[in-house]
């Protein structure tokens, strides 16, 4: 490629990176400003005059972030565990076993993937509230107990494995359960990781479900607590930005550390959706 073309590409990529980063940078800068500093216009101030942590102290005083972190992490961990375990077993059965009713059941899996999730929410909410699970971890976990999408993803993974492996295991006297557990499942580890990351990111980002089942600020997730906070301190943007930063930072740090797995996990699962 010509050097001039390459320069143009770099310029465009750098401008785009700038556009992608400005909102994050502005969130961080505002979080350290005073209300007066954040609304100062003439002269317009980019950097805080002094890097103060008051906003963080103030929001941490009003909102129990430790509790919110615990709720969010527990919900994510349980959803990932449930999705990976149920989807791996079901994916194996759909890919590799022949049994009566299989096609009909797999049809239901595909059908679920095509329906917008909002259509399930009212009855799911009624079930949760009849079970007395509003404002509990079980309520947050509830719609994530199984994963149609994960079942599809893992089925694809098992279909890609060679048949000979299973036959060898069978000749060695493994039954189907043992073949699955010791031979086949370990080979789909990368798909399990992809599903786990995909599930975690979307559980973390979900807003409507936690708002509905866990309206109580102490029992809800970070995302839904942020929505509540915005209603409380509508105009105190430095405090809101501090809260947003506290809520976003851990996921961003994990992402930057494991970016390869994140991007590939979401790309391989998203690409098969």
């Amino acid at each position, binding site marked *: *490629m010509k050097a001039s073309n390459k320069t143009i590409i*770099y310029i465009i*990529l750098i401008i785009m*990176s700038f556009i*992608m980063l*400005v*909102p*994050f940078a*502005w*969130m961080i800068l*505002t979080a350290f400003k005073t209300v007066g500093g*954040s*609304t100062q*216009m003439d002269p317009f101030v980019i950097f805080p005059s002094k890097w103060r942590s008051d906003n963080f102290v103030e929001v941490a005083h009003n909102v129990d972030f430790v509790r919110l972190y615990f709720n969010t992490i527990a919900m994510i961990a349980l959803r990932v565990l449930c999705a990976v375990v149920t*989807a791996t*077993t*079901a994916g194996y*059965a759909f890919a590799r076993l*022949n049994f009566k*009713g*299989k096609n009909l059941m797999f049809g*239901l899996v595909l*059908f679920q993937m095509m329906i*917008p999730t*909002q*259509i*399930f929410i*009212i009855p*799911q*909410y009624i079930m949760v509230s009849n079970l007395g699970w509003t404002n509990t971890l079980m309520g947050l976990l*509830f*719609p994530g*107990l*199984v994963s*149609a999408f994960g*079942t599809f993803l893992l089925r694809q993974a098992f279909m890609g494995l060679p048949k000979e492996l299973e036959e060898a295991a069978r000749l060695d006297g493994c039954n*189907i*359960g043992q073949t*699955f557990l010791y031979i086949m499942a370990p080979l789909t580890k990368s798909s399990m990781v992809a599903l786990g990351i995909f599930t975690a990111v979307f559980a*973390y980002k979900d*807003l*409507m479900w936690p*708002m509905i089942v866990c309206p109580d600020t102490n029992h809800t997730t970070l995302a839904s607590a*942020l*929505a509540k906070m915005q*209603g409380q301190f509508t105009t105190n*943007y430095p405090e*809101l*930005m501090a809260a947003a930063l506290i*809520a*976003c930072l851990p996921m*961003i740090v994990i*992402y930057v550390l494991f*970016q*390869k797995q*994140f*991007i590939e996990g*979401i*790309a391989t699962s998203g*690409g098969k959706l």
Partner: protein
Amino acid sequence: MRNFGRITAREKSEFIWGWIFILPTMTGLIILNIIPMFQTIYQSFFKTGDFGKGNIFVGLANYQKVFADTEVWQALWNTIKYAIVEVPISIIISLVLAVFLNEKIKGRSAFRTIFFLPMVAAPAAIAMVWRWLYNSEFGLLNQILPGKANWISNPKIAIYSIAVIGIWSIVGYNMVLFLAGLQEVPKDYYEAAAIDGATGIQKFFNITVPLISPTIFFVLVTRVIAAMQVFDVIYMIIDITNPALQKTQSLVCLFYKYSFQQNNKGYGATVVVVLLVVIMILTVFQMIGQKKWVHYN
């Protein structure tokens, strides 16, 4: 030879293990999704009584009300406007970025990491930051751009301001999917085109776009479905006192309002059934339309 009426031990064992393996997933799907879907449709024929108590059968009255309800029509139009702006623009930007990053470029993975960053931030936090950027008095945009705009409270432009957030949030995700598609394009096509003296732009339209058209189609279909369900950002940015509320609330925002704020689950269910039908129609149209432009090898 297969013995009719007698099943082999292997078949029996596959049947038993098969059902054991799918049982958790199928039980969950039926209880959490399949039955609820029918319940929602059923619910749409009922009116929820006062204080959310009691269910009164009203037949098609909810549907008649929906079709006469200007708020629902406006919300449908808002949703479509959002999708028409967000989906094509985000696809074009992300396709161009993917093509650039598919070249031998220094800092590829750094760029990729940056573009993908919004995917791992909570939409609630993203919406707060953008609301602050868009703030008409002290927002960054009005500071650095000439003139002042009420980005999110002017009913004429608010939905587009929201679509910009949607585009910003999703380009990295689409780009990663396109990058995966580009890996499959054989390099010799480009070498042959280079010998013929094709420019970069010609290569893009004559080689890249047709060869990754299945990926483009896939992204298009899934993005349209997702855009039609837009909720988080609008809910966070537009509060009930915002003068642009009527011109920005989406169908899912109405669904949330009717079902969980006004406790009229019957009407909320009707709105979401309408959304389901609209999404199905759009998807079917795209499936038919793909024959014209998607090249499968």
